């Protein structure tokens, strides 16, 4: 038995087992810290080895419970394995950071079990080959992230009442979207009689070929766009994000804005490009239009914010618009660009959020107008924040430069001149609001002189510095040496546009 074969399942099951173990030993947070950092390091190494395995040997299919062709499958293709590597990297860094950042009370209560379940949910969504299983892992992800948002950390200046309000919104709206998803999946199942995504794709392609494609397939595709657009904070559904994400403590904020909103993009890439290729001709213009509005609304809302976390949350809304713009344009090069943008934004944004949490702790407030001159008292944070801001704004030598370059190049190549023009204008907005923020926080005069002594005592600990520095290294690496990511992304884009290898790997395997 090939051990590599088991890795997709272990990536999901290991965090679940450790969720159970951490519930049993809740009060020993010193032991838990070491244990959980170890687990997430193992998960990261395994996800990397899975990606290399898939790169060398093709798509890996795993039958849970060996139920033959009726069972639930895990499918690790390049897209899924790549997303798992990304999520494991960010969750490892967030975990290292959180061990020093979160309050003792939060660590003793529910932080570790819920964080493990969140990682299991993310890995499950990226690796499953069954659309109903995807729904189940969405639920795991939503419920665990709700529990994580209430916890408190040291740089967290949100009142508990605000947190509960945010969670109420998040939970109710997620339930609405998840019911929509359930209805969509049920109608899909009623139409084609299977839940396996590759099988659905084959059957819908057959229906389209014979000209008997029922019209409600297009409706299902639109419903799923609403569900995934809600997850990704696409324009008319973006309003919850700026309330919910800033009320989470920094490591969770990094996970939510770094990974969880990318789940929506992954859903569109996986489900729509695999199953609903017949409906894409009418969905692509809608996606492009909405993503442009998302870019514009996010960027203009961010300009007017003085609350640092809200500003960055609106910036996330605007940046996810760029990713969805690439997804909407839909050529191979544009999908490559969308993947490159997604990876760069996930890493740079989560680094920026981790640095923000520490900056807020340093400042003792979340109002940008009361901060200033921190370059003296926190030089490390100012460098990290600058690297993050440069990557999000798209300046060399960071990864964000290549993300924007490839995206705009792809748009110009596909002759989308007006959308790219609009996106460029708002890229300048991004540059403006991020650098204005950086300048007012770290440069200039110290605004509150009576706090200067407290500034000196509030400095990042070693664990926090390590996680931030490692993420900064990754951001710079992606900017200096972007070829591996671009090659990987273009292979993923080819696989998305030609799903035959995926379908063949899933359906044409030896059945017991």
């Amino acid at each position, binding site marked *: 038995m090939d051990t590599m074969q088991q890795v997709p399942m272990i990536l999901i099951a290991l965090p679940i*087992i450790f969720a159970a173990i*951490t*519930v*049993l030993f809740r009060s020993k947070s010193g032991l838990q810290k070491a244990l959980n950092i170890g687990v997430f390091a193992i998960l990261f190494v395994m996800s990397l080895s899975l990606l290399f395995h898939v790169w060398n040997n093709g798509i890996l299919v*795993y039958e849970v*419970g*060996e139920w033959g062709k009726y069972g639930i499958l895990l499918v690790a293709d390049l897209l899924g394995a790549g997303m798992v590597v990304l999520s494991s990297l960010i969750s490892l860094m967030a975990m290292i950071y959180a061990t020093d950042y979160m309050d003792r009370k939060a660590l003793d209560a529910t932080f570790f*079990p819920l964080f493990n379940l969140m990682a299991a949910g993310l890995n499950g969504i990226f690796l499953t080959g069954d659309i109903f299983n995807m729904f189940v892992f969405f639920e795991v992800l939503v419920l665990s992230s709700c529990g994580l948002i209430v916890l408190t950390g040291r740089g967290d200046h949100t009142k508990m009442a605000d947190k509960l309000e945010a969670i109420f919104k998040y939970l109710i709206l997620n339930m609405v979207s998840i019911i929509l998803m359930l209805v969509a999946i049920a109608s899909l199942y009623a139409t084609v009689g299977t839940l396996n995504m590759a099988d659905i794709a084959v059957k819908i392609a057959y229906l389209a070929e014979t000209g008997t494609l029922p019209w409600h397939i297009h409706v299902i595709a639109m419903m799923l766009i609403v569900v995934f657009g809600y997850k990704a904070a696409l324009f008319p559904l973006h309003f919850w994000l700026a309330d919910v994400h800033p009320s989470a403590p920094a490591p969770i904020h990094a996970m939510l804005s770094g990974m969880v909103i990318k789940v929506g993009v992954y859903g569109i890439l996986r489900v729509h490009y695999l199953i609903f290729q017949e409906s894409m001709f009418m969905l692509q213009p809608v996606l492009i239009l909405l993503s442009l509005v998302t870019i514009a609304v996010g960027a203009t809302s961010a300009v007017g914010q003085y609350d640092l976390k809200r500003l960055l949350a609106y910036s996330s809304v605007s940046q996810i618009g760029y990713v969805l713009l690439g997804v909407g344009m839909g050529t191979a090069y544009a999908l490559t660009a969308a993947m490159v943008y997604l990876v760069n934004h996930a890493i740079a944004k989560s680094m920026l959020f981790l640095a923000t949490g520490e900056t807020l702790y340093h400042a003792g407030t979340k109002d940008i107008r009361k901060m200033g001159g921190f370059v003296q008292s926190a030089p490390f944070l100012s460098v990290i924040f600058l690297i993050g801001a440069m990557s999000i704004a798209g300046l060399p030598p960071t990864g964000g430069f290549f993300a924007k370059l490839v995206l705009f190049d792809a748009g110009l190549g596909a002759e989308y001149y007006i959308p790219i023009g609009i996106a460029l204008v708002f890229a300048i907005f991004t540059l403006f609001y991020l650098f204005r923020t950086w300048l007012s926080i770290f440069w200039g005069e110290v605004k509150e002189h009576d706090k200067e002594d407290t500034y000196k005592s509030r400095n990042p600990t070693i664990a926090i510095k390590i996680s931030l520095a490692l993420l900064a290294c990754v951001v710079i690496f992606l900017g200096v040496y972007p070829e591996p990511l671009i090659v990987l992304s273009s292979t993923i884009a080819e696989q998305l546009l030609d799903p035959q290898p995926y379908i063949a790997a899933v359906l044409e395997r030896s059945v017991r």
Partner: protein
Amino acid sequence: MTTLITKTVSKACVPIIILFSVSLLFAGHDLPGGGFIGGVMFASAISLLYVAFGLKYIDSIYSYQWDKWFGAGLLLASLTGFGAMLFGYNFLRSLYMLVSLPLLGDVKLLSTTLFDIGVYLVVIGSLLYVFKGTGEDE
């Protein structure tokens, strides 16, 4: 709710309900029953005790930590999956054998039962943890 009638009736009922929940648990996967339903029934029996006698009285006899039940159940259920991996099969691959036992006759022994017991403990632990938490809340 703490009248004499409720107390007497629940004293008589609770053991029966618990036994019935266990029989539902072992009814298996091809008959009505299973870990989830059994767990809900067990939780309702214990919550009947909480309602009839009050949280403080039950806690003074023995203070259950229901979250530990939840953890143990989740651990048991997921380790069942890993058990199949140890023997070189895929995760959650199940196995059954027929055994003839004295008095009971032919019994089907399923490895899935371990998973079901895990589900049973998770359901009991999570429901009663929520009940107790909301009950203790002033």
